[in-house]
């Protein structure tokens, strides 16, 4: 047998131990190889091909002209007003949805952290259930809730808060509400998982020293939860910029990038434009996420605990 711990004579052990370690790391490599190959074949390779197709010229009868080299796709992305508008709209949506999501998530994660027993279970369940429910169901639910004849407007009208029904859906407000609903569970859990390792005693100490509750949260809890908040921000932003389901079902006229790119790929069959658009969008997202992370790290830096 290869691995044995029986005490070996020192000279034998000197030769044997490194060999044993090496076979162990070889086995480790062998075990990781399938996933590594899978990721290369199903994630890296498709992206390289996407990149290659974005650099071909368009074709009238095919989806793209194979074998050609051209920047036409990129030129179209940067000159088409429709495509640029969609990018701007997507980023606005991403920023607004992220700001709302992260603020609510910090509060809710804190509430889950402080809760006990059945209440804690109920709060956790309320996060996990939407997380495991399909995007289609989640966004579709806002149609009967937020439409002009929907429940929310009925309530507002009967309370005399508004005189005319408000058209949340279809419309940008509806898209934002839907998108916040989609990313909130991920944001809450990312922050909660950091909070749950935190020592409540520090907050108590701050309170004993006279800090009010909101102040103790802002000055103690938020800085310590910063690693979780950064993850929550990145996830919310990335998914909201690329949002497809919420705008697809809840938007009126303004169309974000995801809907536009789908149209180019599936309806217009302009693959070189669709792929160039996807590449540009991905680069813009990566750049903005990097800026976002660095900025947040800067603010959270001096309180780094995790």
């Amino acid at each position: 047998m290869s691995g044995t711990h029986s005490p070996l004579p020192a000279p034998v052990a000197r030769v044997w131990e490194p060999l044993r370690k090496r076979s162990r790391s070889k086995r480790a490599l062998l075990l990781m190889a399938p996933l590594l190959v899978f990721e290369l074949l199903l994630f890296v390779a498709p992206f390289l091909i996407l990149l290659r197709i974005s650099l071909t010229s368009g074709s009238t009868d095919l989806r793209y002209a194979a074998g050609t080299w051209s920047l036409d796709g990129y030129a179209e992305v940067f000159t088409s007003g429709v495509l640029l508008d969609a990018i701007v709209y997507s980023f606005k949506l991403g920023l607004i949805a992220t700001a709302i999501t992260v603020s609510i998530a910090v509060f809710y994660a804190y509430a889950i952290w402080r809760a006990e027993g059945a209440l804690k279970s109920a709060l956790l369940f309320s996060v996990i259930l939407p997380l495991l429910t399909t995007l289609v169901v989640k966004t579709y639910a806002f149609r009967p809730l937020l439409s002009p004849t929907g429940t929310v407007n009925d309530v507002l009208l009967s309370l005399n808060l508004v005189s005319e029904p408000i058209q949340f859906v279809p419309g940008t407000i509806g898209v934002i509400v839907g998108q916040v609903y989609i990313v909130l569970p991920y944001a809450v859990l990312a922050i909660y998982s950091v909070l749950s390792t935190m020592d409540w005693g520090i907050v108590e100490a701050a309170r004993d020293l006279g800090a009010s509750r909101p102040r103790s949260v802002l000055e103690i809890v938020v800085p310590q939860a910063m690693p979780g908040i950064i993850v929550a921000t990145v996830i919310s932003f990335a998914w909201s910029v690329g949002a497809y389901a919420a705008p697809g079902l809840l938007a009126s006229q303004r169309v974000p990038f995801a809907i536009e790119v789908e149209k180019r790929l599936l309806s217009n069959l302009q693959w070189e434009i669709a792929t160039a658009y996807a590449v540009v969008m991905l680069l813009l997202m990566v750049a903005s996420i990097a800026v976002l992370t660095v900025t947040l790290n800067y603010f959270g830096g001096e309180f780094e605990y995790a």
Partner: protein
Amino acid sequence: MHRETVENAAFRAGYLAILTFMLLPLAVVVATSFEASGQLLFPPENYSLVHYRAFFEETRWLSAFDNSLLVGAGTTVVATTLGVTAAFGHELDDGRTGQVLAPLVLVPLLIPPIILGISMRVYFVRAGLNASFLSIILAHTLWATPLVYFVMRSVFSRFDWQLLDAAKDLGAGPLQSFAYAVLPNVKHGIFVGALLAFIVSLQEFVMALFLSSHSTETIPVVAWTALRQSLDPMVSVVSTFLILISIIAIVVATLATNLEWLSKQLS
């Protein structure tokens, strides 16, 4: 003292409002599935099971249901195998491969599914696998594997590795020692990972939309196309089933471990 009471009341009202926000939309979907008329009404005016009967008569929904189960089962098998072996390997590993693997597995989750869907479609069309079940299973595996992988890494990190060494000292081979020393201690984790992989596959629709054809479309894809045309009460019925399956999965996963642990694995 008075200030404290007001703060407590506001705090409680705040999280109860969010709790409602989280659960109300799903409750609305379930409730609308019982509305007798063809309209989407909440709260329903006349309760009836008429749409449920219609669901079981419509072949498109039923075959989509079968497709979803097939894709889900395939994804579960592939993702669990890849995730468990890689996490186990990562635990044994002291080299650099593991450091490359973890981010590589994580990144697909951060890229908007629409971009993944496009790249996969372009790729599978070239590979001649477009609109096949295999292409959807592989795409879903890309999303499900990270969950299994990270769940298993956290499970393996709590495992007492001396047990494995002990098994080897007693003469067990690599497979035997895994089966007798490791597996019994981590089987709950594997089960929860597999369950999550299945749910992820069952509920994913953006990539499936790009990769499926009429004969391979899954439940969320049919629901999406139906909703694009009009508000269809049948979607409420299907959604109710999907929500029910998620609730069952959470309950089962909670019985195998606990809610707190599960919620940390999902973040």
